[in-house]
């Protein structure tokens, strides 16, 4: 799908407000008006707030805040474990509604996405209200919508009024609406970047828009130029419905409950992470050819080391063994806070041809009959007829993985 260029575009950024909390409230209306938080693992230190309702936020509860701290700020906080299947179902329903309006929908994560509505007939502002109302009426989930000529401005706009906001951000509004904002509120500027920018005397988005391009490029490379042009309201990225198909790496990382030098504990964590990665590869029906190990030490110093393999791998044992090899080679014996295992050079298995082996094909062949039956039935009834089961479909009890937010995109990949 390609979109005609050289024409003023109308882009929506649709952002679900407190998505997980909103879904829970829609499920159980008793929760409405109460401070609700969704947290990973309530028992351990690593239990952090994933999202919370506006009522909780009013008391100072913030995303990524440790649970104990949130409870201190808001003693009557209702803490729930995530119910991923609910969120996934709600999200699917929302995107299904959006896709009915136009094929140019680009899901970005489970609770936000872009739409290019340039070709959609009718008044775009009315359309935005209609989308917002439909989602509210059908699913009881509030969202904010930003309307702008490009993705960046739409994203900034949807952030300006929450919940249930609809904000129009035209190029000519930039000076008044965008430039006064502190630079860290700009999409694409993280805390590290903001820190560096402030050191360069860039405090607002306006400062960034006027900052010398050469200096920015020196400090941030190509990203510096990109940030400057975004600050000037320029963003040429099209809304790409196929963007969800691109993934180059699949990883899983976890903070330890305490800093440790106990290799037994670390081996166990690498085992768990490799297991996660295997499950996610399976979900995507993909395989990868390099393994990257990330080690964050007690002093936040972080290293990543990777190894390229001669062939594509997909199974836990292979992932784990390579990760352990990297660990043994690279650990400097200092206490470790976080470990991450990532498979890179990932491709979908349907693009991967597996040469069968003369000495093992008979074993493979036993699965052959099953495969051909699946093939025949799939040809007849469509590709979705059969899917390999993941032994444990995302269980609610699993501790939270940030990756879930991206994995949900798989639902759009078929």
């Amino acid at each position, binding site marked *: 799908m390609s979109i005609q260029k050289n024409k003023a575009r109308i882009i929506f950024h649709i952002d679900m407000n407190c998505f997980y909390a909103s879904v829970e409230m829609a499920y159980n209306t008793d929760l409405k008006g109460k401070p609700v938080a969704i947290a990973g693992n309530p028992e351990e230190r690593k239990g952090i707030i994933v999202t919370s309702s506006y009522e909780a936020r009013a008391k100072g509860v913030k995303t990524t805040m440790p649970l104990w701290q949130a409870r201190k700020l808001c003693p009557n906080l209702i803490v729930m474990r995530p119910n991923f299947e609910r969120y996934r179902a709600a999200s699917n329903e929302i995107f299904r509604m959006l896709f009915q309006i136009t094929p140019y929908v680009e899901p970005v994560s489970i609770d936000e996405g872009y739409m290019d509505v340039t070709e959609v007939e009718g008044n775009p502002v009315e359309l935005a209200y209609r989308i917002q109302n439909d989602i509210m009426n059908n699913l009881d989930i509030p969202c904010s919508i930003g309307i702008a000529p490009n993705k960046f401005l739409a994203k900034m706009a949807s952030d300006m009024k929450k919940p249930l906001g609809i904000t129009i951000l035209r190029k000519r509004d930039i000076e008044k609406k965008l430039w006064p904002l502190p630079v860290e509120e700009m999409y694409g500027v993280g805390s590290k970047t903001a820190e560096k920018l402030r050191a360069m005397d860039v405090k607002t988005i306006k400062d960034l828009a006027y900052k010398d391009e050469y200096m920015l490029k020196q400090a941030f490379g190509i990203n510096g130029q990109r940030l400057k042009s975004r600050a000037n309201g320029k963003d040429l990225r099209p809304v790409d419905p196929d963007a969800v198909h691109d993934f180059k790496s699949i990883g899983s990382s976890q903070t330890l409950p305490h800093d440790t030098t106990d290799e037994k504990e670390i081996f166990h964590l690498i085992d768990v992470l490799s297991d996660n990665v295997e499950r996610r590869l399976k979900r995507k029906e993909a395989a990868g050819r390099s393994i990257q190990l990330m080690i964050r030490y007690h002093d936040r110093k972080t290293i990543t080391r990777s190894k390229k393999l001669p062939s594509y791998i997909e199974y836990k044992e292979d992932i784990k063994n390579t990760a352990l090899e990297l660990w043994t080679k690279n650990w400097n014996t200092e206490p470790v806070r976080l470990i991450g295992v990532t498979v890179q050079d990932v491709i979908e298995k349907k693009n991967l041809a597996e040469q*069968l082996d003369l000495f093992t094909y008979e074993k493979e062949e036993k699965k052959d009959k099953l495969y051909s039956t699946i093939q025949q039935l799939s040809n007849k009834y469509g590709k979705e007829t059969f899917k390999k089961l993941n032994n444990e479909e995302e269980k609610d009890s699993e501790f939270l993985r940030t990756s879930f937010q991206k994995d949900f995109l798989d639902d759009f990949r078929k």
Partner: protein
Amino acid sequence: MKFVIQRNQLIASVQDVMKAISSRTAIPILTGIKIDARNHGITLTGSDSDISIESYIPAEEEEMVYVEEITEGSIVLQAKYFSEIVRKLPEQTVEIEADSNLQVTIRSGKAEFNLNGQDAEEYPHLPKLQTDNSLELPTAVLKSMIKQTVFAVSTMETRPILTGVNVTLKDNKLLFTATDSHRLAVREMNIETVNMEEINVVIPGKSLNELNKILDDTDENVEISVTNNQVLFRAKHLNFLSRILDGNYPETSRLIPDQSKTTIHVKTKELLNTIDRASLLAKEEHNNVVRLTTKGNDLVEIIGNSPEIGKVTEEIAVSSIEGEELKISFSSKYMMDALKAMEADEVKIDFTGAMRPFIIRPEHDGSILQLILPVRTY
């Protein structure tokens, strides 16, 4: 040692023995060529300890004189320099003389080279093979048996035994088998008179490749003799000695299916050209995979596809298709290698299922078989 030799004969012999010489060898003297002068002729020897080649130049043959003024003796010369020098000498005759201090003088016309030689006594002795246990084969037949199988040996050292060609002789049947575990090439030959017991050896693919290069396409016979760890190929004026690989070659005959679900009869050249075209868009990183689909009973569709480059589709009319409909993916390279080995205008391909091996044979010749394992695409 001294002799005067015809340069063309010397060049040809040096080229042959150079095939066995490697510049990287654990035994320094093996970077040299050994020259033995005897009254009946000159023998050159090159070796890398896996392969050893002896080339003989008779003093006289069929009333032609190749070597004169012979004083017997032996010397070893640096192969790299000696071969270059011989190639570039100005005249048709070459005089080579070694003194007792291992100093060698090479004269041709007005050119004179002085080289430091090495003592031939230090050159390893090649094993002497008994020749009463041997097998004779026309050179052209041996060469074609090598060509039809050796390309299928493995290039990976993970299973060293598969880097060789399994040569067996049983019940008057000589069999060459090679496999890299993804494809299998088998060529058989009936031998009428054998004065040899059964044999079952694995000869390194590299040795056979070199042997094939050295042997001329003649009607003369090659004599093959085997001992425990060496095999000797003796042709006219040439001895080619190779190491044999240790270990048991896997039993492959039971892996060759004997039934067929789909059979395609097709012109070799046409299929080869079609696969060749499809392979243009079936590149390395995708295992060179092409897909074959039967269409009715006389059409086959071949597709090559690289999502980031493009796609090629071609239909090819075949003589006939029997059996079930079929869709199968395989390496275009393996298919092309197999078809090139056919030496027949028309081939028969027996398929036994999309995930099972298929077999290519000449239409009217059971002596050669190429088996290929397909590729599973998801």
